[in-house]
């Protein structure tokens, strides 16, 4: 097992290196640059901008810039944002919490409702509920998040005044209830699409299970239908969902760009977009590496869990 882990870690390191090279090249070869934000203001002349480029090391050849960045990264120095001079790790750290809060709550909400709708849809296949759930899922998947977000704001914030029109907290009142109040709008919007997806997965998985022989056997033994459903069908139908949840984990930290923008939610998605718009190379590279590490880590963890769960796999793999 130890050898397997070491091999996977080495592979991951190689992959990270390749990801960083490709990411760096694409980012720097894209037209524009981080100094454009200052040129737009008009109070800095070309001489000032050239001086800044020299001071930031942007006038050096690209391979030199990359090696410098890589060398710093290897020493744990993620660099500082061109936009606001803050350390990249601090910038990422200040956005991860908001994203995690939003993504985790919306995913949980979507999973609970989605699973319930999926199970009920499968059990009552071809019923009115199933038909409505199927149509509802299609509609939810087709609604643009941006539009739905604005509708939620328009109805619940502007119209009814029940929810705040955005932001994570009210300045001066940052209680748990206040945070929860702010979370409702973006959470509903984000959960809508996910609920549709989860319900479809769950329905399909449940349909596979309820036609299995062991369910039929359980029925023939006279076990009550409710018990069969909960103890035999749902438990087995949830297994593939756990795999899907695992694959979904990295997105919990990468953020939801559109929802974060509509609801002024200070998360990773918006940070990534802002950093790309400003060509804030250190932050974009930081987010790229952070996400890549998460994906590789998630994949490694999933593989390790499989090995733990199935000793036969471990014997072959190790």
């Amino acid at each position, binding site marked *: 097992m130890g050898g397997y882990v070491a091999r996977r870690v080495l592979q991951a390191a190689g992959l990270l290196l390749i990801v960083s090279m490709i990411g760096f090249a694409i980012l720097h070869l894209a*037209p*524009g*640059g*981080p*100094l*454009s*934000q*200052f*040129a*737009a*203001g*008009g*109070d*800095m*002349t*070309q*001489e*000032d*901008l*050239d001086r*800044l480029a020299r*001071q*930031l090391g942007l006038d050096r050849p690209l391979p030199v810039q990359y090696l410098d960045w890589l060398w710093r990264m290897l020493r744990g120095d993620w660099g*500082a944002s061109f*936009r*606001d*001079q*803050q350390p990249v790790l*601090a*910038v990422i750290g*200040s*956005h991860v919490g*908001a994203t995690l809060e939003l993504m985790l709550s919306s995913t949980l909400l979507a999973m609970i409702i989605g699973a319930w709708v999926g199970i009920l849809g499968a059990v009552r296949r071809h019923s009115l509920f199933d038909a409505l759930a199927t149509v509802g899922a299609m509609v939810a998947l087709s609604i643009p998040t941006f539009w739905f977000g*604005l509708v939620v*704001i*328009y109805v619940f*914030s*502007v119209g009814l*005044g029940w929810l*705040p*029109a*955005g*932001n*994570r907290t*009210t*300045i*001066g009142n940052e209680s748990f209830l206040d945070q929860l109040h702010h979370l409702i709008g973006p959470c509903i919007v984000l959960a809508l699409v996910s609920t549709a997806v989860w319900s479809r997965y769950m329905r399909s998985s449940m349909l596979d299970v309820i036609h299995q022989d062991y369910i039929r056997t359980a029925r023939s033994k006279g076990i009550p239908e409710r018990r069969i459903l909960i103890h035999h069908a749902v438990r087995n139908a949830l297994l593939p969902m756990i795999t899907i949840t695992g694959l979904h984990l990295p997105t919990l930290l990468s953020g939801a760009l559109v929802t974060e*923008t*509509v*609801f*002024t939610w*200070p*998360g990773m998605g*918006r*940070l990534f977009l*802002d950093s790309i*718009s*400003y*060509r804030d190379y250190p932050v974009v590279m930081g987010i790229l590496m952070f996400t890549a590490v998460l994906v590789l880590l998630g994949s490694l963890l999933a593989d390790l869990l499989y090995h733990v769960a199935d000793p036969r796999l471990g014997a072959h793999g190790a």
Partner: protein
Amino acid sequence: MSDPSHPARHPSTTTIPRRGLLLGSAAAALAPAGAALAQPRPPAAPRGQCVLGFSQEFTVAHPLMPANEVDQAVWWNLFSPLWGLDPAGRFYPILAKAVPSLENGGISADGLDWRIELREGVRWHDGQPFTAEDVKFSLALIMNPNFRARGKDGYDRIESVTVEGPQVLRWRLRQPYAPLMSILSQFFIVPAHRLAGAEDPNNTPFHAAPIGTGPFKWAERRTGSHVMLTANRDYFGEGPYLERLVFRYVPDVNVMYTQFRTGELDYIGLLGIPANHYAEARTLRDRVIHVIPRGSVENLTLNLGHPVLREKVVRQALYLSLDTRAITGALYYGLPKEAVTFLPPENWAYNDALPRHEYDPARAARMLDEAGWKPGRDGIRVKDGLRLEFTNSTTTGTELRTQAQQLLAQSWAKIGIAMKIHNLPAAVLWGKFWAESQFDSLMTNTTYTIASDPNVLHRFGSHAIPKRAGYGSNVSQFENARVDELLARGVVLNGIEERRAIYREVQAIIREELPMLPIFQGMQIEGTKAGLMGFENNLHVLANSWNAARWYWA
């Protein structure tokens, strides 16, 4: 607590003679007649908070580094310059006891020696006294080659700085430089005791926890969300009357407007309220909508290096057939004011005798005919094998500008001019595309002045073409010997009347030569909650939170 006996806190003293004049003009502009008399008085101690919404995020706390408008909005409350510019364009002392001038002897007759006396009793937010050493240090920091200073223009003319006492300093210029007075109105002093001796001046603890001498102190920053300042009860000037000032980042202008509507924002600035929401915004209860002129000009910047646009008659025909009223009327709801020059009418050097803009496409067509531009097979004019064709670019995502471009393309097509639209993201447009004059023409909103100074040497001087010189912002590649001569003289003279004559002539030449086609004066729609007192537009600063120290709730 504040010291009510401190002279600077009272509007009746001469130290900050702004409140009376500001309230007067603000009341006239914003409130019904007689309302100024009934205006509630500010509280005795700071009270309440104000949440200001901006569509850009605060970035840099160090006030001498490259920054955006929101940074400046915060700096005005955290730091103080030696003097500032009031809405009428007059200098008023802030950290200086008096604004130096030829008349009061603060500036020598040759314009080279400046003597500045500083206000006494001013303290940094950490309690340390503010002295002339801080000013000297701040000037030196800008010129430090290792420091990423915003700009060195003006500061590089200072030959030597001498501290004559804790509150007195003197500097000597290599040559007179009149725009320095305006430049220094945005020169925020930083604390020497916190920054001197830093190994890397670009990266110090000050960046995360800045201290200044301004009316508010740094409280917290939540990246992606807001910056919060709290009242500095030892502030030397008038105010602050608010306990907290919050600069909130709302990236989408429509969402920002919604938050203003629902009451989550008390003030909405920078890109403000989109013009298409103006009619609705006026009907909102308990909100005051301010249509405010800015110091910028919405214009078409032409690249005179382009084979078609280098011909003066083409530029003149373009301007004659540019339907500015259709743009301001149909797209901007008739809110912006006409512009015919690069200076706003509020500027002291504005030339009010310039020919007004005429919309006469028939005359434009005749001019082109006479100049040899004849319609080709497809209707587009041709001369010596060259088609009368060019592209126009602006930043993507600016909806109203894109509509203005379409309007122009359609109207110019009618007289045989082909304009193609080629828009780019801001990070691309303002990069080499702009600096190396790779565009044919740009539709932008440009502030030509630095604070209120009409010096446009870097914009229209022939030596300031960045493509050739690596210096300046003359991306139009405009060259005119008379303008060069006038602009060179304009910066070394200190007499305002002589300078006024110079810049009036420069404007006349630019109006004739048209390296840029003015469309309308920059305009912004801002909003405040009805109970917020003290708000006042100042087109000489980049953000209207410049006087938030004097804001209070009724």
